[in-house]
């Protein structure tokens, strides 16, 4: 291991926050924020040379553990490590409490929204959301109307992306309530951090995250159609070539569940069975990590080999719990997102705790015109894609990219929304020789069974390239451990 002796200085020496963004750790005068001062001191003491050495240990741990995602969906698929930055993102107790309450509120409202739109559709009848806009959502699955999931739980697992504006306000950027991914990295990152920084952990008061699999399992069992003790819960994966396969297998192992593929399951007389060496066994709860479109070739895509014929029938009969429910896509449609504050008021009679980003719905003619006229300044996004796909950042795009995106939007206005580019907050990030500000977002995870639980931690993704706003793992993003600092007063 080659160390460069001249650079064994304090880790954050010379760190300069950007002038136009909020920095999570340092204030505008480059002084550590009060809640972060302890952590800054501990990392400064480690020094640059030692930090580099530990980064190598961390990288090795990820590689040895095969904690990877695949880039291509074939058997030659390249497995990559999700780049990991050893400087944690810290969340002060006050911010955390605010977010925790805001998340729980939001998930409650989204869940009631789904129950409503797959039931009486009161919110449409009362004109809070335009019916035409709603009905054109590709995420709405009419076949699911009248199908009531156990205890009305649609959103067993939610990942709600939050960003921080330059004024310090934490706002919701998007909701992920179909199959939010990333929680395995939260747990793996923490495991590695503990291994690499045992002394720092002993001193810093960081909320533990390792409860997650147990909480998820509890939520799955709590919504089972059969007695809890008899519940057979499985995790359903598209298979080893899926980019999130590590996560599927990790969660199955940590929950003590079997990991199944579509080919392992079959439906007989509207009941779901898994093929075992000792004969067929009933399955009661499926934590599904397959998109709805591939779930059941009898109902959705006929060409799907990943799914299970008859699964939807079994689900509609109430013989199996699917987590998350089928049809959640309408709830995280980005053109429906502007109405979430309205949902909160409508269903909960509360004011939204968390604000969200101003959004132009291209399906509205005026907003479409505004979007097209300002496409170079705005962020335009496809309403139902994730992973940064279908997204164009106006200020960073070239003419051709803008023209292509404009053409797509014109051809299918309902499929797109636009938002102003938010100056995402930054966090000190190791960039080879020193720590420099890089933009971050944040995805907390909310698990809902009998009640909701917000994981005290979450996935912080970081845009590793200087000046970049794109944090997606598929597009050059990395991740950080997220430390929810415990209240020193407690």
């Amino acid at each position, binding site marked *: 291991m080659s160390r460069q002796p001249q650079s064994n200085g304090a880790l954050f020496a010379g760190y300069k926050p950007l002038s136009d963004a909020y920095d999570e750790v340092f204030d505008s005068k480059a002084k550590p924020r009060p809640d972060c001062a302890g952590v800054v001191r501990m990392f400064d003491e480690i020094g640059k040379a030692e930090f580099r050495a530990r980064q190598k240990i961390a990288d090795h741990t990820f590689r040895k553990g*095969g904690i990877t995602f695949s880039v291509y969906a074939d058997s030659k698929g390249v497995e990559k490590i999700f780049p990991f930055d050893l400087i944690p993102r810290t969340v002060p107790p006050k911010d955390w409490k605010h977010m925790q309450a805001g998340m729980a509120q939001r998930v409650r409202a989204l869940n009631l929204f789904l129950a409503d739109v797959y039931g009486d559709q009161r919110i449409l009848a009362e004109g809070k959301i335009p019916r035409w806009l709603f009905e054109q959502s590709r995420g709405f699955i009419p076949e699911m109307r009248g199908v009531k999931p156990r205890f009305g739980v649609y959103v067993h697992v939610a990942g709600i992306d939050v960003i921080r504006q330059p004024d310090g306000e934490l706002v919701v950027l998007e909701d992920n309530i179909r199959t939010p991914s990333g929680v395995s990295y939260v747990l793996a990152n923490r495991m590695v951090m503990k291994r690499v920084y045992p002394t720092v952990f002993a001193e810093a008061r960081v909320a533990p995250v390792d409860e997650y699999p147990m909480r998820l399992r509890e939520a799955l069992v709590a919504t089972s159609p059969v007695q809890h003790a008899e519940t057979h819960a499985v995790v359903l994966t598209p298979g080893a070539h899926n980019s999130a396969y590590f996560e599927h297998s990790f969660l199955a*192992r940590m929950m003590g569940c079997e*990991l199944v593929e579509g080919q392992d399951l079959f439906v007989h007389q509207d009941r779901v*069975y898994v093929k*075992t*060496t000792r004969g*067929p066994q009933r399955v009661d709860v499926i934590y599904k990590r397959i998109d709805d479109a591939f779930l059941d070739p009898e109902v959705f895509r006929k060409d799907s080999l990943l799914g299970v*014929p008859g699964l939807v029938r079994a689900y509609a009969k109430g013989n199996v719990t699917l987590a998350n429910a089928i049809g959640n896509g309408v709830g995280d449609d980005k053109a429906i997102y502007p109405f979430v504050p309205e949902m909160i008021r409508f269903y909960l009679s509360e004011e939204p705790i968390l604000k969200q980003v101003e959004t132009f719905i291209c399906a509205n003619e005026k907003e479409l015109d505004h979007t097209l006229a300002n496409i170079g300044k705005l962020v335009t996004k496809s309403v139902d894609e994730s992973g940064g796909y279908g997204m164009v950042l106006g200020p960073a795009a070239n003419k051709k990219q803008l023209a292509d995106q404009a053409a797509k939007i014109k051809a299918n206005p309902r499929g797109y929304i636009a938002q102003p580019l938010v100056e995402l907050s930054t966090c000190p990030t190791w960039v080879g020789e020193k720590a420099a500000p890089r933009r971050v977002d944040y995805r907390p995870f909310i698990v809902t069974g009998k009640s909701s639980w917000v994981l005290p931690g979450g996935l912080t993704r970081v845009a590793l390239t200087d000046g970049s706003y794109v944090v997606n793992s598929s597009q050059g993003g990395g991740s950080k451990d997220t430390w929810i600092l415990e209240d020193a007063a407690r």
Partner: protein
Amino acid sequence: MISRVAGNCFWMHRYVERVENTARMLQVNGAFVLDVQLPDVQRWRPFLIVAGEEPRFNELFGAKKAQDGEVVQEYLTWDERCSSSILTSLRWARENARTIRETISLEMWESLNEAWLWMKEGSARKLYLRDRHTFYNRVKDICLLFNGICHNTILNAEPFDFMRLGMLLERAGQTARILDVKYHTFGREQAADETAGEVAQWLALLRSCAAFDPFLKLSRPLSGPSVAGFLILEDAFPRSVMHCLTRAGEFLERIDQGSHLSGERRALAKLNALIGYVKPLTIGKFLERGLHAELTRIIDATADVCGAVHADFFDPVFEGLGRGQTQTQTQSQTQTQGENAA
């Protein structure tokens, strides 16, 4: 357990066993050919034959290249076009393990993953070029370590039984194949008038099966019949054909008894028939019938048992309950290559 996962358990350990045997054979032969005067074509070609790789090798390199030990070793060690090369087998061992990480222990996965990374990332290649003996030792160590981890970190339950079953059936077939190298080297059945080279090869074959010391401990005369007898019939030796088949039978019986599958199962009957055939035979009888023919029979029958295990447990039909779609996976196609090798 889930049928597909049972298949992954079976194949994962089978591939690890294949890696170990291939490494042993190549290592021992590297030393053997230095000691014995043999025509070039007899030095390495037998290994291509017993691995079932000769046609593919000839197609890729031409038959003449089988005389070139470097090319043959390279092919059987590194070539991913070779379905039983060390690298290919290790890839599939790891790939099977990756598919069932929730079933195996973390240590099992990490040991295979680390081995795979070592093979892929250059340092293994350097060692291969600089010190081949140590390289093959490292490969063997990987497999022995995996074996030990497997024995000590998971429940002695069904997944374990399928792993052992796969490993033992593979080993039985491999030992039979290694013995058959002798026939392919000298082109004749065992004879009374053995040359010094033939005797040296018996020694080499013993080493290929890690059987040299165990054989000597039983203080038998070093001759073709006693070596062949030891490697086929000696129940106390963990790599003998008989030992592997009998132990495999015990695991299969345990699996079979736990099963409530309604369809007819054939694997256990087939394995018992094979055991019943081999057990009463003496080495004299084997030689009388022709060792090569008898070894081929064992190898084919073992492959047949594997096929029946697949049909019985990995892709079962549930009578009266219908079944999910049956999919052919490229992986299982690759998995079964090399099955009827001899």
